[in-house]
């Protein structure tokens, strides 16, 4: 992902297109391998796959009968083949515990995670860019130190713990914000008004802490680097107005900063088990947590697959975007 420093001269556009084409073709084997890893991870886990619907005190005949009814008596390669075949048709099977189609469950959860991620991105990126610019402009001053400490604290804090502390302060002690859930009527009745945003605020702040830190650090480094370059001095000497210098900084910092923010948004869109569990936010991480604890194999492997595929395509997108923004980038 990091842009490789290369020697001077630019490459032709056709090279970029070829690189993009090659990169896209690579995705196919990766997708299949990812599916295989998902399946194996879920299936080598010890324990009965039917534990969600079969009490431990059920008789052995009943267990065998159900195992056959769900197809868990077939050899693993056959199960994998069938699962992959159906997955290619957009059918991830039905959850064992609830009987509901896995794809719909995952998509609804992903929708809620997207809501959370957007809110967190707005908070985290705004804060990050602001702090980063300030710190970069006033490098080695107390303002820089303060902003940097803030950023470092952001990436160093165990955020689920932070989430709990925020709940204590704002929900329990001050009674300003609700502690858990996705709105007074659940996520199905979500709306972008204050009644609902109240529910979003604490999880979004908790989620925003890490991207805030990372964006601050990136922007600070970029701004500092650009400002310390000789030609900036030259521009200033030539009498260029500070806003012009600032525009220059923004222009040069944007590609890397955008790439970093894109990735951060991607990570947030993947959901966080821990934050979503602490706040009972019904996103993909929360779903994954339920799937793990109910040992609901179709749901578990479906959720992992969707999230993993999402990251495969995110990585692809970032690579392509970088190649498009900066055609000098050469990849092996």
């Amino acid at each position: 992902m990091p842009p490789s420093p290369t020697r001077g001269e630019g490459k032709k556009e056709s090279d970029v297109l070829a690189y993009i084409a090659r990169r896209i073709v690579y995705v196919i084997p990766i997708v299949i391998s990812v599916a295989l890893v998902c399946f194996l991870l879920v299936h080598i886990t010890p324990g009965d796959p039917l534990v969600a619907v079969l009490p431990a005190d059920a008789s052995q005949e009943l267990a065998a009968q159900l195992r056959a009814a769900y197809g868990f008596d077939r050899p693993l390669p056959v199960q994998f083949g069938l699962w992959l075949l159906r997955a290619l048709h957009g059918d991830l099977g039905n959850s064992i515990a609830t009987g509901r189609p896995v794809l719909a469950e995952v998509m609804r959860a992903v929708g809620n995670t997207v809501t959370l991620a957007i809110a967190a991105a707005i908070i985290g990126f705004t804060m990050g860019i602001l702090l980063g610019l300030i710190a970069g402009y006033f490098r080695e001053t107390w303002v820089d130190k303060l902003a940097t400490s803030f950023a470092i604290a952001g990436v160093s804090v165990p955020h689920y713990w932070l989430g709990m502390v925020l709940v204590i302060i704002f929900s329990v002690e001050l009674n300003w914000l609700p502690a858990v859930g996705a709105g007074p009527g659940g996520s199905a009745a979500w709306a972008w008004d204050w009644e609902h945003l109240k529910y979003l605020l604490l999880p979004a702040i908790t989620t925003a802490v890490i991207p805030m830190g990372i964006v601050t650090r990136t922007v600070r480094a970029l701004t500092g680097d650009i400002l310390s370059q000789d030609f900036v001095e030259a521009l200033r000497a030539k009498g260029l107005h500070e806003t012009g210098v600032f525009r220059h900084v923004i222009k040069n910092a944007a590609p890397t900063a955008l790439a970093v923010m894109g990735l951060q948004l991607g990570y947030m869109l993947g959901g966080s088990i821990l934050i979503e569990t602490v706040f009972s936010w019904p996103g993909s991480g929360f779903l994954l947590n339920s799937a793990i604890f109910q040992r609901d194999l179709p749901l578990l492997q479906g959720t992992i697959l969707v999230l993993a595929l999402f990251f495969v395509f995110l990585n692809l997108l970032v690579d392509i975007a970088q190649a498009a923004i900066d055609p000098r980038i050469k990849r092996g």
Partner: protein
Amino acid sequence: MTELPLSATADAALQAAPATKARGYWATVGRRIRRDKVSMACAFVLLLIFVSAILAPWLGLEDPYKGSMIRRLRHIGTAGYPLGTDELGRDMLARLVYGGRLSLVIGILPVILAFCIGTSLGLVAGYVGGKLNTAIMRTIDVFYAFPSVLLAIAISGALGAGILNSIVSLTVVFVPQITRVAESVTTGVRNMDFVEAARASGAGPFTIMRVHILGNVLGSIFVYATSLISVSMILAAGLSFLGLGTKPPEPEWGLMLNTLRTAIYVNPWVAALPGAMIFAVSICFNLLSDGLRSAMDIRN
């Protein structure tokens, strides 16, 4: 937690280039870092935590496993229990000091292991290039496709809870990340003029790899790896949080934080202590890693 400090990657990669092969380089870096007050303070705090963890049995502390229902959840400053007691009446000071042993091992060991494995893979892939690069990097891509928390949880879930399994799963999580950094930095350095000069003067691939590439690359990867330690510590604690890491009654900060969560209404400050320890170690490692990076950046 999936959200790794990727700027470190970018910075490390960008700043590897100007590093020269001069012998005096590391001496300069050493001198620079010794002048950095923040880094030195962090190093001191970390040293203190490390030493007290190692020397825990000889510090005259209470038994960290021995509890009593009568004295549970004492406040900070209680006579005999300077940091209070936990939900089973065990001395918090002793548990925090002893907890450092497991927490630091689980936090640091996976990064060290991943550093060794990932650097080797990345160096080979980056230096040799071509088909081998493709083979290694696309395999890495498969694992990289999984968000780190997801991967760690899936592997720990498959292997079952336990300290060793946590270390294994965290190592698997970090290898792809370090490999990617190592590969991209190596690829960059490989094409630099001084390496081509060495190649032209007849140096063999191993010599080039050892002297030029390793020398120029290791620093960046090392800096990146130190920044992973804090991620690793938080992730390890997260595994315990989900019941996939350390098992009770072992003192380990992540687990302590999780078992003390129920006490947060009764005794929030005691409940907050293990989190504060994780926070302290993780922030010190991050600051140290930053200090190291700027010390290695000769341009400044």
